[in-house]
């Protein structure tokens, strides 16, 4: 159940949308440069995908972004094809929008790399879903 404080949610949604736009733009840009590859992979530190999946849940990332990082009103989609690691890391430490900051005291750099690895590992969504053509 959601204690739905409407006006604040609208603002969160608006801010989330802006973040989403920024991230999507970044993602699209990256995709244009490296078609077929995972953007940012070259600059991302190696991470543990399984630990990243665990942390994504236990650190509450999923609360706003969904368990599959699919995104929603409270937070944009994060994967697959996450934004470059540098931008990802910078935003988590010092978010410009509504997202709560995660300092290194709460999420270590290693854990960030693990989460990023998890986001990179997410599968592409199924194509041509009939229910979405209604």
């Amino acid at each position, binding site marked *: 159940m*959601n*204690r739905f*404080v409407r006006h604040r949610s609208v603002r969160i949604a608006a*801010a989330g949308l802006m973040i989403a736009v920024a991230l999507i733009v970044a993602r699209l840009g990256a995709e244009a440069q490296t078609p077929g590859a995972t953007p940012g992979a070259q600059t991302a530190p190696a991470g543990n995908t399984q630990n990243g999946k665990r942390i994504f849940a236990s650190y509450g990332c999923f609360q706003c972004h969904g368990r*599959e990082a*699919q995104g929603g009103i409270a937070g944009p*989609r994060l994967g697959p094809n996450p934004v470059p690691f540098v931008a990802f890391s910078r935003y988590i430490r010092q978010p410009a929008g509504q997202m*709560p900051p995660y*300092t290194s005291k709460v999420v270590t750099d290693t854990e960030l790399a693990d989460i990023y690895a998890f986001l990179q590992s997410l599968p592409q*969504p199924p194509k041509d879903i009939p229910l979405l053509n209604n």
Partner: protein
Amino acid sequence: MAKSQKISSDRRNFLKLAAGSAAALVAKSNVLSAQQAPSSPPATEPAAHEVEMLTTDRTGSDFMVDVIKSLGFEYICSNPGSSFRGLQESVVNYGGNRAPEFLTCCHEESSVAMGQGYFKIEGKPVLVMAHGTVGLQHASMAIYNAYCDRVPVYIILGNTIDATTRRPGVEWAHSVQDAAAMVRDYTKWDDLPISLPHFSESAVRAYKIAMTPPMMPVVMVVDTDLQESPVSQSAKLRIPKLTLASPPQGDSGAVAEAARLLVAAENPVIVADRAARTAAGMKYLVELAELLQAPVVDQAGRMNFPSRHPLNHSDRPGRLIAGADVILGLEVWDFWGTVNSFRDQLHRSSRLLTRPGTKLIHITAGDLYAKSNYQDFQRYAEVDLSIAADAEATLPALIEAVKRLTNADRKRAFQDRGAKLAAARQEARERVRAEAAYGWDASPISTARLAAELWEQIKNKDWSLVSEARSANGWAQRLWAFEKPYHHIGGSGGAGVGYIAPSSVGAALANRKYGRLSVSIQNDGDLMYAPGVLWTAAHHRIPILSVMHNNRSYHQEVMHIQRMANRHNRGIANSHIGTAIDNPNIDYAKLAQSMGLYGEGPITDPKDLGPAIRRGIAAVERGEPALIDVVTQPR
């Protein structure tokens, strides 16, 4: 508990006379002042030769039912209470329990919220009866929601005014000097009639006030003695004529100026919130938007605008607001929040979204009535043209003014703008479809999948979404084709949790006679406030399909605690404390079954969802309420 029959009889005679003639009462009263010693002790038992009057054929409550019937109420939503026992008995016997019919509610909060949902489909209020004390205390949050949502609910409270005739014990605990005081800050009007003529006049007045925009709940406090006292057949009682006030329309000069700004604008934006009061409201808004070829941001306080219309740009408000040169707000609850962004970090901050020189116009009945204590009026909006009027009533004049000012050049410009907007709308729709595919096969089930599976089953039926269109990530609003005035009913108003379950049953009650399929996306925590409303739906055969958005938490609060924990650098490991609704998980299907509903679930595999919804709809189409429990992603 019995009370002195002698006193009771005298008291009833007193009120009978009060109803008939106050002057006669004064003449016949035998008033004894405090300074005078009585010549003999007052009689407490009837004399041997007197025949005690124990029954009567007509009481004040019968006349009250006459008045109530004259106002056209279809239903009374109520949890029974002794302080209005006379009125309840008159409703079910004298009134034949028809128009209004007494519906048994398990909580006064449910009674009021059912009325809120019912009004937003039917356009007229239900009557709620409750104790003036404990019943109103239960009802108060729902009254606040209705007040914030500008919905009239007509509330009758029972109370026993005369302290000397109260039954000892509970009736004292259920009596109060000023019953309505508790909710006066968030009701529009109240009264405490002391005679039946007073009741009838105030009852009609209350209805008229409640139904005049801005609409809000009203309260009538009805004395038990006035209800239960005999009424002489010769008593001259009448019911005043009800003439509803026409909604206030905007000043003609201001409307002309609004039209001038809109026609001259290069990038006008229309923002609608609680704009469409009736079916006509959506028709007018579509006409205005199409005349101007202006995008509409529907904030979904009401069913304002068709969701798939090429001019519906509700999913990209930020870009539109930032680029607008004129913004027309129609009954916008939070205009300031519409044109500003707000950042909830350690130091709260805000930023104006509009560009310099953007003209802001607001048409709202909210400017006609304000109270100070509760702060639902939002931050002060610095608009350029403020029209204190009902938006829907003002739209026809605005449309005509726009038509008069639109020349061929402007019409061409509008068409060019419309073509670009239609293309942008199509692109946005494709983006939404693409986004909905992510997490499609996830378990817990994604809210996009939930909305899509539900839409697949209802899209060819005459459906009505009786929960909030924006909940569950707003996927219904983004994926479904909302076209008719009853396709959704807006939100709670005051964000008081516990609204969805009862208001959806109330809306389904209104939909029942039209044969519509009422569907609700029901949040788990919301249902747990007063789940007894499920029994009310079963008992009164109110068909509704509730599909649970069961994320097993008070999820908004999870995010708030998470925000605080991160802000304080402590991690979020304990954010579930006080916010999770698990351990044990609630079996909502069994809960529903126990109250007589068709129940299924918990559904955790998305492949099982479509068939379960189909079976639920089959039950609803047999006239039963049904609940499908779906374990979902948090949002």
